[in-house]
């Protein structure tokens, strides 16, 4: 079950024409899919579109009512391949994933799909994981669109526009027989706003109908000679059709401005940020009325030369605002202008940063630079400092204005005060996470036998690379943990360890990592972290999830799977059992048995477990039933203040507080009330022989009569002895 439930929200998907929906971008996209008469949907979870998969999962009933087929695809490649259904049949299909990570995985199928061309609209909704909050390599989906000739939509980030673009995307796809990608940036996916709904539409043709009367067209298969034909078709038929459609439907937008001789061109997704920046500079109002003319590319690929030339024709300079690198659009525009021999000067990444997310202040600074460089008079009286400085030096318009760094005195004092006091706070393992003990064990083993090369994967377990564990060398992709360690498959004194999550394992790991290790007779150690879910992406169910689900087949054992591909050394260990884990690791590192040593570290994701159990516990306590809650406790008097326990754990609940001993200044360890009693603190205290200050406390809620009776006797004896201690302490005092 996913971390976040949308059961309540999905009811909004039933709303009809004219009703206003207030929701997150993701829910809006789902609604738009239903309004477009989509016949099938698939995808693979991953921020920022994880919630789209969750919404679809929770909307199963509604989808069924509309005869929409939905699959949680095994990987992005699976999802992309699913779109094959739109090649022969007029079926509208949509899939979604995190990009560019997912697009990389999908690109094999995606390229084939693009070559074949589609009959029914095929839409890929990519969550562009770029900039703040991103967890992957910083690349652009744009390159995929260009290389495969897929059209790329990047709409202005407001819900009416985004939802509209979903429907339009299908139309464009069908008009040009080409798959279309809809790119949503991180904040747009989680943008909360409102739009007016339309009625849901049943698909014109359902998947069932298509299946019942198969048709085929050999020329759609990617095989000679058709593959050559496809390329020709792409350029000679599909591209012109797309351009025609985009122009007719006016998907790109022109906004007028009174400063007519300069202008801005931008990707649609950046529009709101640009307007806000101009607004701060006094060049736009809150409704988007802007003094500079703007050309918004809601379609960022293909480029509509004619529109670009029309926009640039009467301008002496334009600024291309394009996020990410390389600057494909800017290069294209430069080429278009050159071809047409237009003298318009094109600015872009010479003014804007070449790489990195374009947040508000980045754009604001760039805007100032641009205007002061090409038309300083525009800023006069508004932002005096910049304009004045420029007018004093004046005239060489070709030099880009560089604003001097000025900091107001108060701010700089404060910032100096803060220097060195603001430690970084990267994301990390949650309270009681079952993955943490694995790395406590690895760290202890490493302390004993020396440094280990560790090949990591994608997933929460990748947090091992951060303090306090500092474990792990590389991550090459989902399910590629062991593959990333495969070059080290040579005899050596110390084996290397690779880590892989259950999500990655089913996604790609079984074949690319495990089978490969078996086939190539690797002797190294592979650790598979089995926490019942694809936890990093929001706790979606996978093949090996323990729950029984209505419409998915689960409970498939990882152990059986690896044995099935020929692994002979497999051990399953409870992650919280650090001692056994250490022992098993030692064994795996030294076992003479040939072939990969697979350790399956099993325990449920604590976030999901808590979400399930907390309400049950609350009810039980309320109804007066006996219940034992475990949590940990550190004796402040006994604590060393050395924090070795923290260096083996990093649990947010295991923190520090002021030392109660006035002679000592080191903060002491302390467990806060969020502790879920996972037991790692105790395991570490034992296995690493830490100080004796850790205690677990068993708190008995609603004790029974028997509990109270035994408790009473114990209290009598202990109380008697404690009284003696107290009396001694009274005698021995200053």
């Amino acid at each position, binding site marked *: 079950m996913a971390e976040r439930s949308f059961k309540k929200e999905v009811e909004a998907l039933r709303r009809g024409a004219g009703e206003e929906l207030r929701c997150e971008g993701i829910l809006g996209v789902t609604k738009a899919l239903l309004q477009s008469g989509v016949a099938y949907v698939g995808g693979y979870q991953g921020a920022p579109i994880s919630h789209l998969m969750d919404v679809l999962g929770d909307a199963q009933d509604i989808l069924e009512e509309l005869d929409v087929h939905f699959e949680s695809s095994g990987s992005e490649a699976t999802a992309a391949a699913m779109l094959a259904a739109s090649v022969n049949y007029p079926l509208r299909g949509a899939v979604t994933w995190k990009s560019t990570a997912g697009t990389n995985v999908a690109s094999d199928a995606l390229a084939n799909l693009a070559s074949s061309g589609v009959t029914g609209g095929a839409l890929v909704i990519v969550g562009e994981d770029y900039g703040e909050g991103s967890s992957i390599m910083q690349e652009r989906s744009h390159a995929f669109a260009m290389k495969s000739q897929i059209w790329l939509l990047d709409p202005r980030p407001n819900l009416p526009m985004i939802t509209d673009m979903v429907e339009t995307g299908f139309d464009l796809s069908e008009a040009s027989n080409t798959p279309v990608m809809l790119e949503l940036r991180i904040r747009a996916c989680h943008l909360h706003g409102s739009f007016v709904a339309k009625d849901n539409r049943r698909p014109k043709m359902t998947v069932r109908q298509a299946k019942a009367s198969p048709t085929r067209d050999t020329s759609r298969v990617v095989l000679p000679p058709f593959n050559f034909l496809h390329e020709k078709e792409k350029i000679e038929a599909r591209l012109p059709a797309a351009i025609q459609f985009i122009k007719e439907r006016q998907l790109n937008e022109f906004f007028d401005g009174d400063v007519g001789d300069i202008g801005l061109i931008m990707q649609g997704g950046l529009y709101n940020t640009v307007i806000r920046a101009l607004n701060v500079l006094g060049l736009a109002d*809150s409704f988007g009325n802007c003094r500079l003319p703007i050309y918004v590319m809601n379609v960022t690929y293909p480029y509509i030369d004619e529109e670009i030339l029309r926009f640039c024709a009467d301008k002496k300079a334009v600024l291309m605002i394009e996020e990410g690198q390389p600057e494909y659009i800017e290069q294209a525009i430069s080429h278009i202008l050159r071809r047409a021999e237009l003298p318009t000067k094109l600015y872009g990444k010479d003014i804007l940063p070449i790489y990195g997310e374009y947040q508000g202040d980045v754009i604001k600074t760039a805007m100032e630079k641009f205007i002061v460089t090409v038309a300083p008079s525009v800023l006069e009286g508004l932002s005096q400092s910049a304009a004045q400085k420029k007018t004093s030096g004046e005239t060489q318009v070709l030099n880009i204005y560089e604003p001097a760094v000025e900091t107001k005195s108060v701010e700089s004092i404060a910032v100096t005060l803060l220097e060195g006091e603001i430690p970084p706070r990267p994301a990390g393992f949650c309270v009681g996470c079952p993955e943490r003990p694995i790395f406590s064990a690895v760290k202890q083993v490493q302390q004993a036998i020396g440094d280990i090369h560790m090949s990591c994967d994608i997933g929460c377990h990748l947090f091992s690379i951060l303090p306090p564990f500092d474990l792990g060398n590389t991550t090459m992709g989902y399910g590629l943990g062991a593959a990333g360690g495969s070059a080290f498959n040579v005899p050596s004194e110390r084996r290397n360890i690779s880590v892989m999550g259950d999500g990655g394992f089913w996604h790609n790991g079984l074949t690319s990592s495990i089978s490969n290790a078996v086939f190539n007779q690797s002797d190294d150690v592979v650790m598979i972290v089995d926490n019942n879910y694809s936890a990093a992406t929001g706790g979606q169910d996978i093949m090996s999830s323990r729950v029984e689900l209505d419409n998915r087949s689960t409970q498939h054992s990882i152990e059986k799977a690896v044995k099935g591909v020929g692994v002979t050394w497999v051990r399953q260990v409870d992650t919280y059992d650090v001692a056994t884990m250490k022992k098993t690791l030692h064994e795996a590192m030294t076992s003479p048995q040939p072939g990969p040593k697979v350790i399956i570290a099993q325990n449920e994701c604590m976030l999901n477990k808590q979400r399930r159990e907390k309400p049950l516990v609350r009810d039980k306590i309320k109804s007066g039933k006996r219940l034992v809650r475990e949590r940990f406790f550190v004796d402040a008097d006994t604590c060393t*203040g050395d924090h070795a326990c923290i260096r083996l754990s990093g649990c947010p609940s295991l923190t520090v507080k002021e030392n109660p001993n006035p002679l000592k200044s080191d903060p002491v360890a302390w467990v806060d009330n969020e502790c879920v009693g996972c037991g790692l603190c105790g395991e570490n205290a034992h296995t690493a022989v830490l100080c004796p200050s850790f205690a677990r406390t068993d708190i008995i809620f609603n004790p029974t009569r028997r509990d109270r009776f035994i408790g009473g006797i114990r209290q009598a004896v202990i109380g008697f002895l404690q009284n003696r201690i107290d009396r001694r302490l009274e005698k021995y005092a*200053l």
Partner: protein
Amino acid sequence: MFESREQPVKIAISAMGGQGGGVLASWIRDLAEAQGYLAQSTSVPGVAQRTGATVYYLEIFPGAETERVGRKPVLGMTPIIGDVDILIAAELVEAGRAVQKGLVTPDKTTLITTTHRAYTVAEKQHLGDGLSDSTKILDGIRQVAKRCVAFDMEKLANEHDSVISSALFGALAGAEVLPFGKADYEQAIRAGGVAVETNLAAFNAAYHLAGQGGLEPAVPEKSDRLSVPEAARTRTGKMLLDRVLTEFPPSCQGMICEGMAQLIDYQDFRYAELYLERLRSLVAQEASEDHELTREVARYLALWMAFPDTIRVADQKTRSSRFQKIRAEVRAMDEQLVYPVEYMHPRIEEFCDLLPRRLGAFVLRSKRLRRFLSVFFTKGRKIKTATISGYCLLYLIASLRFMRRASYRYAVENSAIEVWLERIHSQAGKNPSLALGLAETACLIKGYGATRDRGRQRYEAIMAALAESRTRPTREDVRRLWEAALVGEEGREFALALAEFSSDASLKDSLEDSSEDSLEGKGADPRV
């Protein structure tokens, strides 16, 4: 060409993932929408929700203006430096981070922040005190904000059995920066429908505090002057107290009294007397008026003399005050039963520590005996201190106090203490700065088992380096060394610092060639 002069209100929430920043954002959104405003919020979930730092951003815009213009406004997605009206921070360092990013400016931003800390791994994992200075952060952010409402909202939320978002929401209402009434806010909480009672309680408390200005007094500086008890509680205690008052300068008295009290608690009056004797010979030697050396030695001597052995641990774990502390900390209700389960892992070393001096040394030296006995000490033990058998076991161990002075461990620690004092004495007159450095290096001697061994090794390494140095090391030189010793477990930083010190020393040496002040103390291992 502009149609409107109206600006949205821009609100950023700087928080940690999983802290409820999303709930707060949705309350503000609901509140604004209920009052006829247009609201847009954005966030960055993904991995940030796993405890990392994150920023939520909202813009709200008056609906009346939207109607007048007949169109929807274009609302921003990310905060812009210098253009945030309200910054809400759910943790103090996160407030600092926002200020560092420039999201708080004196002409514009009302800063609403809690003052509590959730320590980062970077701070917590230090081998000593690696925490950021909250006072500095609070100072900094106050200077830069147009207005600052700051108090411990986490504590307040806890007191009302609620979560920090309610307190922040209350503080926002109390600061009266948004054009909404208190009742409107409360309605948003009610509409949320979760834990309404407790959320409202925390909301109200925070509302009132913020209304009164909501500025917490800055945390007082920690001082090294402890106060002298007004009167002794026992007769022998009075004698000792009188001695402190007559024989020591006022600047040291508080520290010495505290040290004495801890040693009486640890062993007995005689032990405290030994402590006084040791300090008396030092104070006579110290020329400085402030007597900082005596004070620092008083601190570390008390800590060292109260070395934590198994007897001490058992003693601390059997006291009634500890049982009360546990109950309070785990927030046990009166009717609930609480059973602590102690995680102990005595090693053969700890066992030998308790043996009489010669016997302990013998066992530790004999490989065969060691191996034989080790079998009993391979596993950690869980001891239930609130059951009769578990408690009695610890009670018995604690009562071995009477034979502590004869134990192997006592002998080891005692001779190390004497070597240390000797070194300090030898420098107190010649190089008082170095003497202070030597005194402070004792901060490395702490804890149990591996921690203590590592600290001890580094301590000895520093002593050895100082002994070899032919220059005149200062307190600062020594501080650099012991600070480096506290940085990483592997000791890379420490090795670097040592190397730097030695090369520095030899460089200075060749320049000045002044060898007269070199340190005499030997780096001998007193454990032998």
